[in-house]
């Protein structure tokens, strides 16, 4: 039972990171109907912004985190939207998808070239202490990661559902043409979506890097996990991505511990296949119908 609790909490913490990245997948899907295949690298890069702010500008870690988040929102939000999405989207979804694949390679190789190919230690966000939950030893770090991710997602939920800008963003995602007719500045709303995505991946990067270490290849596994989480939960629902991330994180941990550590990489894929077979819209996704 103690082991189960440890695995469950640790899985939730990892799953919360997947959820942050998966939410970004769904936000961008809803506003631009495209999949950002650089999302994993978007989670990898902000940690290096933070490290660069500390190493090059000599900033303290908390200040460097703010700089890292700001840089993420500028580079991965504004510049990504203006420099790639706006430029490629008029040519269709496929060129944009290919562009994001190219961007993922560019970001990865750039970090390798300009920072390091080696993993870098990343300062911990909490003190190195454990707490006892029903006899199970759970690290404060895991609880903090889980709490911070939940707080961020709750804040996003409140923003989207209870503010004017949030509701305009939802209207833009649901029907851009009608939103324009209603006088909603849809271009600005779409820009906000990209900036929010950049903020979420920036937060995910800062939360996960003390555990994963900062490395240019981190995006490979994180991007895949977030993509799977978004499909499992439902690609067209923010809450689906959250549930998908948490389910995947817990499922990965439990299957590696209780089924087989050798086939740990296969279990999430089995889960994905089962969801696609029996509930293709995802656990919480809604069925979309299109006229052909």
């Amino acid at each position: 039972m103690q082991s189960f609790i440890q695995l469950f909490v640790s899985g939730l913490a990892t799953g919360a990171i997947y959820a942050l990245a998966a939410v970004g997948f769904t936000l961008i899907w809803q506003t631009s109907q495209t999949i950002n295949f650089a999302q994993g690298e978007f989670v990898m890069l902000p940690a290096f912004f933070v490290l660069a702010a500390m190493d090059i500008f000599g900033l303290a870690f908390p200040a460097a985190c703010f700089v890292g988040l700001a840089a993420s929102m500028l580079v991965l939000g504004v510049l990504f939207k203006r420099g790639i999405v706006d430029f490629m989207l008029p040519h269709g979804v496929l060129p944009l998808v290919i562009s994001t694949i190219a961007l993922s390679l560019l970001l990865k190789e750039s970090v390798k070239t300009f920072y390091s190919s080696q993993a870098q230690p990343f300062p911990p966000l909490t003190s190195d202490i454990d707490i006892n939950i029903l006899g199970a030893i759970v690290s404060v770090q895991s609880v903090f990661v889980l709490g911070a991710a939940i707080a961020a997602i709750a804040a996003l939920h409140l923003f989207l559902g209870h503010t004017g800008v949030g509701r305009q963003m939802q209207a833009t995602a649901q029907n851009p043409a009608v939103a324009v007719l209603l006088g909603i500045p849809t271009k600005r709303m779409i820009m906000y979506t990209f900036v929010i995505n950049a903020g979420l991946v920036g937060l995910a990067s800062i939360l996960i890097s003390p555990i994963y270490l900062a490395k240019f290849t981190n995006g490979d596994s994180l991007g895949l996990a977030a993509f799977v989480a978004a499909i499992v939960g439902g690609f067209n629902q923010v809450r689906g991505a959250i549930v998908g991330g948490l389910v995947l994180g817990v499922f990965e941990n439990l299957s590696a511990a209780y089924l087989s550590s050798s086939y740990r990489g296969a279990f999430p894929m089995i889960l994905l296949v089962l969801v696609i077979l029996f509930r293709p819209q995802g656990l919480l996704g809604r069925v979309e119908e299109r006229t052909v």
Partner: protein
Amino acid sequence: MNYMRTMMVCALSSVSAPTFAQSTATTIYMPDLAELSGAGAVSGTNWRDGIIMAVEELNAKGGILGKKLDVPHIDTQSDAAIARAQTQKVLDNDPYVVLGPVFSGSVLVTMELTRQAEIVEFTGGEAAAITQKNNPYIFRTSFGQQFSMPKIANYVRDGVKAKKVAVVWVNNDFGKGGRDFFTAEMKKRNIDVVADISTESGQVDFAADVVKVKGVNADAIFVYTNEEESARFLREARKQGITAPLIGETTLLSQKVIDLAGPAANGVKGHVGLTAEAPVASFQQFGVKFKQRFNYASDHNAIKGYTAIYAIKYVTEKIGKFDSKLLAKTLHGLTIKPADEAGILLEASWDQNGDIDRQSFLGEVVNGQQKIVEILPKLGAN
């Protein structure tokens, strides 16, 4: 994806400018194939930098037999298929020696090509299988697992006095080979392996593995993974309050793992084949020079690369010409002493299989520093 990358490397190699130089009247071509990115980047970068330091020293003194060393460093991306493609390319330019790779999985494919070309290959790989294929052109720069595992097994029995152990290993050629030898050595010593946990190269989350290890109440935990995975495992182990001794073989006690794991590395013990922290003056001088040159502390892979170059220098000057076949023939059964070649750092001997024998060490991590507690003699001295 790997297949695609390999094809792209091959295609680019065929149309790009000739970056793979050949030996000339004034230079001797010795390409280095190293893991400069991917899962093996820590090992490959150290290996490369050790080579760079030795080459700079030698070229400053005029090179070998009057020829400067031309040693391009080529990234295998820690991928065996890319390493193979790169090896084929460099062999087309008649190298004197091929250096690297470090990852055993890559070595096992490149060494077949260098064997066909009859070119000596100095490798940093440690998988036992490398020197069990009757290949006369492959030479190690550190212990193979068949030599290091008995040493660590003796330590587990006599030093830790463990009766049951857990084994955590990385599922690649390096990890699988080490795991097989370690469990066999445990069996010979009547020590039970109560958990046998395979992990993945590049794995980032070790929570499930540590929970499994905790559940078996082993007297000691043997961790045999690559550098970054070792650091992540140590962090998770400390996070979950593991108290059993964590035992490793060279990598687990390396400076890079200590740097990445932070305080979680304290208390780790084990066998160390090569280390700049050893109480050997030549190693310590190497460590200081390396730190000055590259601004980071070297690990065992840097010493491997450095000593490989000086072994080549010594034998080449001994035979008086650049003849790869003669180099291989001369190296088998040869012992190089620091008195004869200072760059070898510590007396080293190569047997007929290309395996190396030299002194090694028992160490532990204390306050973020590797501390050597015992020097073990050469196997040939037993």
